[in-house]
Every structure is written in structure tokens, then in C-alpha cells.
């Protein structure tokens, strides 16, 4: 990396490349820094519920190793990405339905080792689950799209693999009823591992998933909440397929996926913005995060779709994830319009300090960072 900085060679950290097109369209970097060979699980401290992983470890492989001890990394981004590496997931801040209970990658990082473009190798955090010594570079690097440096090592907090799961679900064709029921579940005195909604072709579904020693009994409590909102609950214990579908809603092979950062109380509004465009929606109902998918969008529809959604939902951030390749140059995936924003200036200042040579994945990030 130091060599790149000295020679002004731009570089891009790459894991399995499953999210390589996200972010702004930039010229290909001079060099791809592949993490393929940094693929070892360095430690699994089962008694402490922590693990030290290299960035090239595939999440699916990590989960398999941890499952032997009934543990997991509480991350479940879409399954199509079974190749996805921990480094890539952290660098893009990607997540799935488990985020409802266990939060985002940023929240699971106990320690991080990074390489900066001047060759510095630095560590922040530690190996223990509670630690306030020093600055939290793990959070800074999570979601930074490789623009600050390369992640070399991650120490993650683990969680117990739930012995069983069960899901309470209900369907409706009324977006308001869907939002109301999801909200009632979010505020009920129950403990959901995941709380999602889905909308497609005029019909929607709310899903509350429970894990633990008594998942079915917990789901019974959700049944009552759903009934009180006037919907018909269905209880499903063999629920894996259901949740795979939710995760799949966050990706599209050739079409468009836009992530909307909203609030719980905006589910119906997001659905109504997506519907006229022929879009489907999955959402983390308790978190207010929604993914709108236009599966068969061509270039023109994708560009128009993004514009429409931003005009209907703005100022809520509408971030483009997947998109037809030819449509990308015509859109700013981040939707950041205010060039002189104080937060953006601060971000540029952070970038300048960590990567003064400007060689780490230049241009891909917010505001062209």
C-alpha cells in the first residue's frame, strides 16, 4: 500500500466482489488488492463469545465453524452472496433481518486492524466485549467502502445460535394496516429477533421471528398482537424459506434496488412510492429501513425510478445499491446534493488524514470521496 501511495497508484480492496458495483461509478483502479488469501479464522474464543477473523473469510464459512459451538456472527445479509466476505460486509455495512435485534456490522466489531495507504498498520478496540480505551476506528471503517484503508483483521462479538426459531406472520392488501401491525409488533413487550415486512403486487406481509428456548410460545404472544390489529396470524415453525425470501428482496441481478432510510411510521409511504413504479419492497419494520426493488427495470426505468423515489420520499436518503450497469453513470447512488454540507467537509477531512495520497478506492464514496 505504501508503494501505491508513493507512486500514486489507486487501489481497491476486493473480497469476493459481490458488491463491487455499489457506490459511485469510477474508472477502474490501477490495482485490486484481493483479500482471498487473508482467509483464516485466527481465533474462536467460544467461552468469551468472540472470534478473530481475517477479512477474506467468507461469512458462510465462519458461520459453519461457529455453529459447531452453537454460536454465530449475528449477520445475515442476502443469501445470493454466500460468497460474501466479512471484510466486504463490514466495508459496505451490509446486513439482513437479524439487524433488528443485533444491530449492524459496526455494532459487532470489538476490534479492528487496518492498513493505511502510508503503510501504517494500526489497531483499535480490543478482544473484550466492553472497552472504551482509545478511538473507535471500527465504526469509522465500517461502511467506509475501502476509502480509508484496508481491513486486515476483525475481532467480532458472537451470539448464541438460537436453539429454535418460529415466525408469526400475517398478510394484508392495505399498506396502512401493514404499517400499523408492524408498529404494534415493534412496540409490543415481546422480544423479536427479526421484524420484517414485504410488499409485492398489491399484497403485503408482516413477519416477526423469535429465537430461543421457547420460540413457539413467544410467537404466540405475537399472534395476539396481530389479531388485535385485525389481521389473521399464521404461525410457521419451519421458517427458513420465508426469511431467505426477505433477504433476497435486498438484491437484484440486473434490476434496481434502492435502500430507503426512513422511520417505522413511513412504511406505507414507501410502499405507495414504490407501487406505481412496479416495485416490490422489503423492510426492517422496527428499524425503518426499506429496500425497494424494480426487478426488471431497464436503463431508462431505473434512472426514472430513482428520480421518482427521491422526489416522493426526499429528504429521506434513497441510496442505490444494485442497478443496471448502463444506468449507473446517470445517477449519484448516494443522493448527496448539498456540496457545502458541514458533515461532508468533515468526511473529506477524515479521508485526507487517513489516506492523504488519495489512493484508496478514490471517488466511489459520498461526494466523490
Amino acid at each position, binding site marked *: 500500500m505504501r508503494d501505491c501511495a508513493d507512486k500514486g497508484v489507486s487501489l481497491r480492496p476486493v473480497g469476493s466482489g459481490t458488491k463491487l458495483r455499489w457506490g459511485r461509478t469510477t474508472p477502474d483502479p490501477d490495482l485490486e488488492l484481493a483479500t482471498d488469501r487473508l482467509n483464516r479464522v485466527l481465533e474462536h474464543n467460544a467461552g468469551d463469545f468472540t472470534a478473530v477473523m481475517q477479512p477474506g473469510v467468507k461469512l458462510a464459512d465462519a458461520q459453519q465453524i461457529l455453529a459447531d459451538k452453537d454460536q454465530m456472527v449475528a449477520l445475515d445479509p442476502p443469501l445470493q452472496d454466500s460468497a460474501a466476505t466479512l471484510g466486504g460486509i463490514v466495508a459496505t455495512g451490509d446486513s439482513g433481518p437479524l439487524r433488528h435485534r443485533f444491530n449492524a456490522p459496526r455494532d459487532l466489531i470489538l476490534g479492528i486492524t487496518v492498513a493505511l495507504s502510508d503503510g501504517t498498520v494500526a489497531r483499535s478496540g480490543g478482544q*473484550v466485549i466492553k472497552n472504551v480505551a482509545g478511538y473507535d476506528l471500527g465504526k469509522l471503517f465500517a461502511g467506509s467502502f475501502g476509502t480509508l484503508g484496508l481491513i486486515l483483521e476483525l475481532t467480532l462479538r458472537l451470539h448464541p445460535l438460537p436453539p429454535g426459531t418460529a415466525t408469526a406472520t400475517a398478510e394484508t392488501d392495505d399498506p396502512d394496516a401493514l404499517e400499523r401491525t408492524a408498529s404494534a409488533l*415493534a412496540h409490543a413487550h415481546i422480544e423479536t429477533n427479526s421484524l420484517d415486512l414485504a410488499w409485492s403486487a398489491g399484497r403485503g406481509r408482516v413477519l416477526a421471528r423469535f429465537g430461543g428456548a*421457547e420460540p413457539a410460545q413467544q410467537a404466540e404472544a405475537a399472534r395476539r398482537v396481530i389479531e388485535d390489529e385485525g389481521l389473521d396470524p399464521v404461525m410457521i415453525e419451519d421458517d427458513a424459506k420465508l426469511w431467505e425470501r426477505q433477504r433476497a428482496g435486498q438484491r437484484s441481478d440486473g434490476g434496481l434496488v434502492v435502500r430507503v432510510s426512513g422511520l417505522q411510521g413511513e412504511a406505507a409511504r414507501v410502499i405507495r412510492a414504490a407501487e406505481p413504479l412496479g416495485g416490490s419492497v422489503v423492510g426492517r419494520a422496527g428499524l425503518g429501513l426499506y429496500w425497494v426493488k424494480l426487478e426488471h427495470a431497464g436503463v431508462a426505468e431505473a434512472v426514472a425510478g430513482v428520480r421518482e423515489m427521491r422526489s416522493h420520499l426526499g429528504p429521506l436518503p434513497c441510496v442505490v445499491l444494485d442497478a443496471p450497469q448502463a444506468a449507473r453513470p446517470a445517477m449519484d447512488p448516494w443522493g448527496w446534493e448539498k456540496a457545502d454540507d458541514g458533515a461532508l467537509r468533515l468526511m473529506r477531512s477524515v479521508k485526507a488524514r487517513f489516506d492523504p495520497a488519495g489512493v484508496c478506492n478514490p471517488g466511489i464514496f459520498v461526494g466523490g470521496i
Partner: protein
Amino acid sequence: MGFDLVLEELRTICGPEHVFIHPHQLHTFESDGLALYRASPRVAVLPGTAEETSRVVRVCHDAGIPWVARGSGTGLSGGALPHKEGALIVMSRLRTIIEVDLANQRVVVEPGVTNAEVSKAVGPTHFYPPDPSSQIVCSIGGNIAENSGGAHCFKYGFTTNYVTGLEVVLPSGEIVTLGGKELDRPGYDLIGAFIGSEGTLGIATKITLKVMPSPEDVRTLVAYFDGTEPAGKTVSDIVAAGIVPAAIEMMDNMSIRACEDATHAGYPPDAGAALIVELDGSEAECKTRFEDVLEICHRNDANDVRVAADDAERQLIWKARKAAFAAMGRVARDYYVQDSVIPRTKLSEVLGRIDELADEHGLPVANVFHAGDGNLHPLVCYDARNEGEAHRAEELAGAIVTACVDAGGSITGEHGVGVDKKKFMTKMFSEADLGAFQRLRCAFDPEGLANPEKVMPTPRLCGEVPGPYRRHPIEKAGLAERF
């Protein structure tokens, strides 16, 4: 700008009644919760709004005056220790709860609002999980600076897991907005970088917090053991069974005696160790898991297990634990609290080592700790009137920190580095690590005026990026040198 001019500007901004310069007025602000360190600032100023805060910081910036922000002053690492050449910016007048948006699980507050006021504003249907022992007094602004945890953070996490938006006054005086009520605003996670930065990156003037629905059921027990070893084994067994208690707290015999003396909560004074276990969540899950916990306690030879029959009894059990630091005053004239963290599996090994070190130094050490996350609070007891004892206590405390770091732990779990633990930073971090921290600090505060001489073991200056070399204001004032 001369200092008189600075004072005049501060008085214009905040009103003369909110600018203190007389020694008797400044006395109150000389230390935070760690009274070991004392310093008087040149001026203490109490802005009433974010706008005033921004103007105050700008005046300091333009005059090259270092400043320290202070909340309620309950911190335990000297993080709010004033700079004797600088200004102390006291945020206690900003104490409005701006908005309670329960439907979206958000609360927007000013930094001077206390931690307990947030839970009160959203209760009883909801609550704000981070619950430091000082929660009745400590401010959210201080919680942001320290990334405060509390007894329930093993399950629920820390302040950083509950902040979605911040309005921050940067050390330049500029006000910036980071995040909002929504999650995942595009860009770097500067909120994550700011929380726990101990007042070195700016001052939070508006904070958006996420609150949680209250659990359906809470069950609490306290189990008594012959010593910390079987109690520690119980903790490991509970966690290994996949149970995530809301709280799991341990006290050794010396702490039990002090707390029982102070609170009469009914702890047997001859117990070798007491273990508080609290489960919360859905009723069905709690019931099953609580039975598992009881079984594990008995399997590890608990002498007695007391299950809280109602909320009053639960409060009583907690009263003893939360009074631990204060109660220690009954058995020791002076004490020194440490905040080290160890991997939970090293508990009995490290406790044994602490006993050895205590014997070597000839001073008693009481232990109360958040056992679930391995956060120890060894209290080194001493009597400052005895020649050399304070020094020996400090040495012993340092040796305990070293033992914890050697076991793979951290120098601080929740109290922060501040001024108290900065000398230990090099035990955990290399020069390169500290250099990376400094990059972040420089991105926010290139002049190094925000809470200088805290966190980092030695003062550092920011190089210009890019551009020619210019002398730093602190350098000009002769307070630090470039190396």
C-alpha cells in the same frame, strides 16, 4: 486576542451571570467524579443554547485557548478535568427534552438532560437501556463523550448502540449535523467515531436516541457462594448455555460487607461472593431460562439463592450493588477504583492474580464487577494519612491494570481514559495505533484545542494536510512541542 477581550466576548455571548472567573466560583468545577485530580480553569462559561456554545467555542478557537466541556461532572477518569490555561464549557443549562417520538422509538434531547430523565420521559412502556450507576445525575452529553454502559450493557449494549443523530459543535465553532432519526445516512459513521471520544472531537448539542419497548418480564436472583471461584464458574456456565442475562454482577466478601452495612439489603455478611443475575424478555423465555440459571447456581454449590419476589425486592437487591462505590467509604478511608476488562474466561485466573498483588502491596482490594462482560472494578483501599500509602495504592492499581491487559483485556471498560489512564494507553496500543487515533482527532480538531492532554499518553500535534508548516497555537503558547 488578550484574555480580557475573550472574557468580554464570552459575557456578551452568554450573559455576564454565566461567566465565572472568581476562585470561589471556579472551585465547584475543579474536578469531576475523580477528585484525585484538580485544576482550576481560567474561566468557566455556561452557554444556554447550541448557538451560544458554537460562539463560545469559536472565541476560544480564534484566541487559541484550549477548552474542556463538562456535563454533570460524574466521570471517573478525570475526563472533565479543567485545563488550567483554558476555558471550561459547562453544558448543564442545555437540558430540554426537545421531542419524544415514541411511535418511532426516538427521543431528541439537549446534552444536559440526565440519563434517568430519558427513561422517565418514555416509561413505563419504553426505556433507554444504557444505565450507568450515576444515572440519576449524569448527563446524556457526558454519556456520549464516554460511551457509557451500565449494569445492563451485556445484553443491551452501550450508548453508541442507541444514538442515531448528533448535532455537534466542532472545535472550529462550526455546527454540523451527523445522522438523524433515520439509520444509515450515507457517509462515514462519524457518530460512531464521536461517541466515546471523551470530549476531544467537539461538543454534542443535540442528541437523537433510540429507545426500546420495556420487556414483558423481569426476573432477578442473587446467589451466594463460598468464594468468587464458584461464582465465576457459574457465570461461565450461564453464558455457555446460550443464556444472555440482562445483567450479571458479582461482589466479593469485602464488597458485600460494605454494601450490607450501608443498605441493609439482606446479603449474608459471611458470604464469599454474591452473584446477581437478572433475566428479561418475553415471559415464556424468561421462565424457562430462569429455571436453567437456578439449576446452574445449585450445580455450582450456591449456598443460598434468593429470588426477588416483586419489584421492591428487586430494587433492594440492586440498591446494595449500585451503592458499592459509596459504601466502600465505610470500610476504607480512601479507595481507588479501577475499570479494567478481561475476557470472561480469565476471571478466576485474574482474580487470583489480584489477590497476590494485594498481598504483595499490603493493601486490601475489594471487587465488584460486571461479570458478564468481564468488566472488573477492583477497589484498592488505603488511608492517605499513612505515609506512602497513596503511592502504594496507585502502584497496586497500576499492577492490576497490567495484569488485566496481559490477560488480553482493556484498561477501561466504561470510565474512559481521561487523564487517569492515559499512562496505560501504551500497554494496549502501539505507536502506530496511537498515530491512527491522532489522525481522527486532527480531522476534527487540527489546532488541538478540544480537551487537550487527555486520552493520548503524550501531547501530539497535527501536521497540516497538505500545506506548509505552521506553528500550532499550543506550540506558540509553549504548552507542547512538536516531535
